[in-house]
């Protein structure tokens, strides 16, 4: 319920802005992009004033004026310099980004415990639920404002403004100063946007530099939706429609989350929804004249009344969505006793991913199996602040414990959620966002793991390695609160030490890092000290490249990047963040109250040195420092070749079978000792079942100049082969590499690629069919032509079937819903045996197929041994672990020196036979002894 009321409340707060955008967009006929900036300005000014103790009402008024001034700037640029309106808006919006950062002083100001308009309203709550009370008050505020603004547009001045927007030439001829009117209108509008920004910041509990991005889209959508719903012509109706549109828009967002849609898809859904709302009434009214039946009459009556048409459409869509959701939910309902844990991370950054993965792994170790006694929901806000709030709202509905990874998520969560536990991880400083005053004195429902980067320790290391006078260069992104905090720390520490000076450079995205680094190098720095920063981290190689020209050492806090060219690193292992967080969650589930669990700092710091880099730079490390180091990268010490090597193990998805193959690969590589012998580190890459991502990962592997690549499964083989022509590439777990164009035959293949091909044992399966059912004539098979593997198997089946004198009858499907029909059609053609071979679509419905086949007494053969438990009669499959082992062995040949072009592709089909003997009697056959002997699994 909170989800809906919260949505309505947000709708009311954003309605000020919707009305403002209505003024510029419809009345002034001016497309105003300034609002992305003025919205944030309103929030910024209010936050700064509230934190300084100003009266909240004054703060809101100040926000109005700040917004109005911004709008005035845009209008001035447009009218005075005759610059196109859109461009003027963009210029001002861009400039406001910097101005807003200056106003706030930092990228984010928390308002958690600061008295503001919202807390004042809550203070006079006579006893209703907080959100409902807020809803009533907001409705009142909006109603009053609506009446004022509508009445204004009925006055002489208002009529003049409307006329100016409608026909500027006429207005000018009638003595209206058109430019002045425009400036007034746009200023007024942006003032209202500023009010929206102020109220939204107070409602959500913080002001953030990024909160304005994209609001123009919401507002325009609100205006358009409103116009479709309320088609009356009076000015009162038009402003009301903007308010209604804003509320409906927010409700739609809430509905999308309720139904379970990914917050990432929200923007797409917005667009589709607005499109439907715009188009549907037209389609309906076009059809109406011909309808005569009673249902049709009702339809036309409803759509005839303009007021109802839009509402009717929206109700229809909402109804369909809710039914759809109920349908999906009833299939997926989990038993009541399951603990639901919601995990949210701010963006797809490596450190956050490491935390998340180690969290999940540790939870499993502690006994929480996802799907059985716990349900873990993973969400990613993809760097968008409003999405964080929507995800938190969604979690608030049905998650028992919320785990927030990164500062932004933690901040949003602790502001909204007071009634259940929040555990945070990978946060630099929880105190500045209002989570508490100290480790033991904190918000009662919050606990977690944090750790500011040990900048001080890192600086000590720098001093020990490079004593004397130093000029240090640092790079960071000023819009990330963490980075600003760390950079400030660095500055403070340096200012305290006598003979070190700091030269800094700021960046706003990863493409600027190289230039920033080069500029610092040219300023004569002696060393780089890089504090944790998402952007610098992702473009680390650029810094290495710039530094290498003058042999400048790099010191970092991010330990993961040490081997990529840094000299020394003092930091934390972020896997610990996830592990410690998991252990806290475990304690809470077992009954401990979070208020009694103190915040934990990362338990292990690690100090690593890269001796190879030291050698390259000609720097000697003091021996006592070497003694303190946890990890030392030094090839010479072990008598191995100087350069450490990296191997990428690239998987397409997390599917269980692939994991088994991967395990086989890694175990074999370790067992054989090549990893140690040649100092190879293995990085596992995963395309998350997405082709676009696979492509990016493949390109990244090439860019990072990996020494070897092992790919498992066909899609990644294809993508990698396209992108990589040099790095030795060994593939495994692929059905038919020849059909993909990688090779003509085992001896003639693309020069840098070789590997292990594993055909589905279709031949063995059909051979077994002939063996067990000598009189059978027709085999039925269902497959999905969109699956490459499936296609290969079916083609093979056709050939083999002929060989063994079977007729193969095929039916194709494109999704699992069509399987039933396909099966029936085959049964009608009187098949004797049924075969499933390596098709993912059909694989989902094995049980259903087996049931039906049993009724018709038709034996079921598959190529996946697990299917025996699902109802199949005989399954001849491949041992996935063995495939992995064989692939690794192939890789070892290449690692040991053989060139891939000299290594022929190997066909390896380690058969694993399974048979359900109890069914043999059912079909009235006797299974020959030697067949049973070969079988790995015999079910009785």
């Amino acid at each position: 319920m909170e989800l809906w009321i919260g949505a309505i409340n947000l709708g009311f707060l954003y309605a000020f802005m919707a009305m403002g955008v209505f003024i510029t967009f419809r009345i002034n006929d001016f497309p105003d992009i300034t609002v992305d900036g003025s919205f944030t300005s309103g929030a910024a000014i209010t936050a700064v004033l509230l934190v300084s103790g100003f009266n909240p009402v004054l703060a809101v008024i100040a926000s109005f004026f700040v917004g109005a001034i911004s709008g005035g700037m845009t209008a001035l640029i447009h009218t005075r310099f005759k610059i196109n309106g859109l461009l003027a808006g963009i210029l001002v919006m861009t400039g406001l980004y910097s101005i807003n950062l200056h106003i706030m002083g930092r990228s984010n100001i928390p308002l958690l415990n600061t008295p503001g308009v919202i807390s004042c309203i809550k203070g006079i709550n006579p006893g209703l639920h907080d959100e409902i009370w807020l809803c009533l008050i907001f409705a009142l505020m909006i109603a009053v404002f609506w009446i004022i603004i509508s009445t204004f547009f009925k006055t002489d001045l208002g009529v003049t403004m409307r006329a100016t927007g409608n026909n500027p030439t006429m207005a000018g001829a009638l003595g209206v100063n058109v430019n002045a009117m425009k400036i007034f209108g746009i200023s007024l509008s942006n003032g209202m946007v500023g009010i929206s920004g102020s109220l939204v910041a107070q409602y959500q509990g913080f002001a953030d530099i990024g909160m304005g991005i994209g609001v123009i889209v919401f507002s325009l959508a609100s205006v358009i939706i409103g116009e479709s719903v309320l088609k009356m012509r009076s000015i009162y109706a038009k402003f009301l429609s903007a308010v209604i549109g804003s509320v409906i828009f927010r409700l739609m967002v809430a509905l999308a989350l309720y139904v379970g849609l990914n917050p990432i898809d929200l923007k797409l859904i917005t667009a589709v929804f607005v499109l439907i709302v715009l188009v549907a009434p037209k389609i309906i009214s076009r059809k109406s004249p011909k309808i005569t039946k009673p249902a049709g009459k009702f339809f036309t009556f409803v759509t005839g009344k303009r007021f109802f048409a839009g509402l009717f459409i929206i109700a229809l869509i909402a109804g369909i969505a809710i039914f759809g959701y109920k349908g999906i939910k009833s299939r997926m309902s989990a038993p009541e006793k399951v603990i639901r844990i919601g995990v949210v991370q701010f963006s797809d950054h490596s450190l956050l991913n490491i935390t998340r993965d180690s969290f999940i792994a540790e939870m499993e170790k502690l006994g929480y199996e996802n799907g059985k006694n716990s349900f873990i929901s993973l969400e990613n806000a993809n760097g968008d602040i409003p999405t964080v709030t929507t995800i938190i709202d969604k979690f608030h509905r049905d998650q028992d414990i919320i785990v927030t990874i990164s500062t932004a998520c933690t901040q949003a969560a602790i502001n909204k959620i007071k009634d259940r536990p929040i555990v945070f991880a990978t946060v630099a400083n929880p105190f500045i966002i209002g989570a508490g005053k100290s480790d033991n004195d904190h918000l009662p429902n919050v606990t977690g793991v944090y750790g500011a980067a040990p900048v001080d320790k890192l600086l000590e290391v720098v001093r020990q390695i490079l004593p004397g006078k130093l000029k240090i260069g640092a790079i960071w992104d000023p819009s990330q609160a963490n980075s600003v905090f760390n950079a400030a720390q660095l500055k403070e520490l340096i200012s305290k030490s006598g003979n070190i000076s700091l030269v800094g450079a700021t960046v706003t995205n990863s493409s600027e890092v190289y230039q920033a680094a080069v500029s610092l190098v040219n300023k004569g720095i002696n060393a780089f000290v890089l504090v944790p920063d998402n952007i610098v981290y992702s473009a680390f190689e650029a810094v290495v490249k710039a530094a290498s020209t003058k042999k400048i050492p790099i010191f970092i806090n991010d330990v993961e990047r040490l081997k990529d060219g840094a000299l020394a690193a003092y930091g934390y292992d972020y896997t610990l963040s996830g592990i410690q967080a998991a252990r806290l969650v475990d304690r809470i589930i077992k009954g401990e109250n979070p208020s009694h669990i103190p915040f934990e700092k990362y338990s292990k710091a690690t100090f690593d040195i890269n001796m190879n880099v030291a050698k390259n730079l000609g720097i000697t490390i003091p021996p006592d420092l070497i003694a303190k180091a946890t990890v030392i990268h030094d090839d010479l010490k072990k008598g191995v070749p100087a350069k450490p090597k990296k191997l990428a193990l690239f998987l397409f998805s997390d599917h269980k079978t692939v994991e088994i193959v991967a395990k086989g690969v890694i175990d074999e590589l370790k067992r054989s000792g090549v990893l140690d012998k040649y100092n190879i580190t293995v990085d596992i890459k995963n395309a998350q079942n997405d082709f676009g991502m696979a492509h990016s990962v493949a390109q990244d592997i090439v860019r990072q100049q990996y020494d070897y690549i092992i790919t498992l499964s066909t899609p990644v083989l294809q993508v990698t082969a396209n992108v990589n022509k040099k790095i030795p590439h060994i593939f495994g777990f692929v059905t038919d590499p020849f059909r993909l164009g990688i090779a003509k035959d085992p001896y003639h293949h693309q020069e840098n690629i070789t590997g292990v091909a594993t055909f589905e044992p279709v031949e063995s399966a059909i051979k077994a069919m002939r063996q067990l059912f000598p009189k059978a004539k027709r085999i039925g098979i269902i497959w999905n032509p969109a699956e490459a593997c499936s296609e290969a198997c079916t083609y093979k089946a056709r050939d083999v079937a002929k060989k063994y004198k079977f007729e193969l009858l095929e039916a194709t499907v494109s999704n699992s819903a069509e399987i039933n029909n396909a099966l029936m059609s085959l049964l009608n053609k009187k098949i004797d045996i049924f075969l499933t071979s390596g098709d993912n679509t059909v694989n989902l419905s094995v049980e259903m197929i087996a049931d039906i086949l049993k009724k018709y007494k038709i034996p079921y053969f598959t190529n996946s041994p697990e299917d025996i438990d699902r109802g199949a009669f005989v399954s001849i499959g491949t041992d996935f672990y063995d495939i992995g082992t064989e692939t690794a062995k192939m890789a070892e040949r290449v690692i040991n020196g053989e060139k891939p072009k000299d290594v022929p592709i190997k066909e390896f089909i380690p058969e694993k036979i399974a048979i359900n003997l109890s069914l043999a009697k059912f079909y009235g056959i006797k299974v020959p002894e030697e067949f049973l002997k070969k079988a790995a699994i015999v079910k009785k």
Partner: protein
Amino acid sequence: MIKLDNIDKRFNPGTINEVYSLRDISIEIREGEFVTVIGTNGSGKSTLLNAITGSILPDSGKIIIAGKEVTHKRDFQRAKYISRVFQNPFMGTAPDMSIAENLLLALLRGGKHYPRISLNADLMAYFKKEVTQLEMQLEDRLDNMIGTLSGGQRQAVSLLMAVIKEPKVLLLDEHTAALDPKSASQVIKLTKMFIERARLTTLMVTHSMQQALDLGTRMIMMHKGQIIDDIPANEKARLTVDDLLNKFADIRKKERLTEDVVEQLRREYV
């Protein structure tokens, strides 16, 4: 009422597209005069009107209206004294606002626009009375959007808007040129009525020689940026359309012998 002293205007001066639109124009129009303006294409008729309204500013010269010098004042500043009806019936009214609202705006012409509601029942009654004069059955549709009216109706409303607050100068810029004959004649009838009733000082540009002769107390002929003939009422009454056409033909003949050509001949043959 209107005085122009040596008004000069060039467009795109110094470039290949230069047009010398108004060449040293001087004219005085007294209060109550109804002047029609005709001329060849490109003679500067519309530019003359635009110079008076302030839509364009002259390169040199002075413009005085109702005793006040307005040469450098912009169009909306001169609107206190001047009202204008455009040739395009869609330019003079705001399509998404009601007839009443448009009339209100016309009533406020040149004055201050305050945030107070003037559109009350009394004012609506007044508007209704005024609109009835147009004889187009619009008096019961005052709250309809102007966009729903036909071109003729819109132009009639534009005319009413121009005179509802009595202007010092009324400028009509070929205001019936885009209308069908029936609407055009209705609008001309209204034009005559309004002007005579209030004795408005009017300047009307027209392409119709018949209109130029039938209406008004004075007629000006323009050609290539200059006023070549200025005909007072009595003489105008005796002229016919053919006479006017002959006058234009004469000019063209004389044109063939321009100053430059004369100079050339002189140099060659004398």
